[in-house]
């Protein structure tokens, strides 16, 4: 994790450089802020070959579980493996969707309050259909492949692991 800068704003020398740069900025401490999202979106205007961008935002819900309301989620991640798996996801998407120009992922680590954003995915493509389908597939692969865990924290400061993995 390091301070945020937007990969699309840098000159993309080649695929491997692009993925490396994306991954350096992929995990952020705390919520994915509107400032971060705005940086990614403002970089899009330079991509005059893209006709469609599909964005997914994952937000922490104030779910009520057994009478207690979720006030935040604490995310933990196996960071080295997250970036290794994310590189595979991006390569998979670019290989499968030939019209896709870029895939960006930002995921929170640490505390994210209810109403805040914990996941940002941005896929740009020449045309809308592949932008939408590739973004959808990227989100599914993130859920399936990234070693990230969430702990729901309730208003009374008790907590519960999502999918605790009880055998």
């Amino acid at each position, binding site marked *: 994790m390091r301070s945020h800068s937007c990969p699309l704003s840098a000159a993309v020398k080649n695929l491997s450089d692009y993925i490396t740069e994306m991954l350096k900025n992929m995990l952020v401490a705390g919520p994915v802020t509107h400032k971060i999202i705005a940086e990614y979106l403002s970089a899009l205007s330079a991509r005059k070959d893209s006709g469609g961008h599909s964005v997914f935002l994952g937000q922490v819900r104030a779910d009520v579980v057994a009478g207690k309301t979720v006030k935040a989620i604490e*995310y933990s991640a196996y960071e080295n493996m997250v970036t290794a798996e994310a590189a595979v996801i991006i390569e998979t998407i670019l290989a499968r969707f030939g019209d896709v120009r870029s895939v960006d992922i930002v995921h929170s680590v640490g505390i994210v309050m209810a109403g805040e954003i914990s996941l940002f995915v941005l896929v740009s493509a020449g045309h809308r259909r592949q932008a939408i389908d590739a973004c959808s597939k990227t989100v599914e692969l993130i*859920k399936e492949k990234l070693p990230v865990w969430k702990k729901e924290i309730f208003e009374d400061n008790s907590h519960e692991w999502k999918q605790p*993995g009880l*055998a």
Partner: protein
Amino acid sequence: MQVRVLFFGVLAEITKTNSKLYGDVNSVSHLRSKIFDDFPEIVHYNYRISVNNEIISDDPILKDGDEVAFMPPFSGG
């Protein structure tokens, strides 16, 4: 030889640690039996094991410096 074992999610909570070193383990099954001795509660949980970022399904030999992670089902996003 020595390997680093990482615990994530609920497993870090029940072991009360994120990371622990183990020496003199020749395979993942050997390591796992040592971990069960230290943290018998783990047997009640579902998890997958990775060695150096790769999820394993067999029982590989371990070598000095390997990183072994015990990972409950993922719940990112």
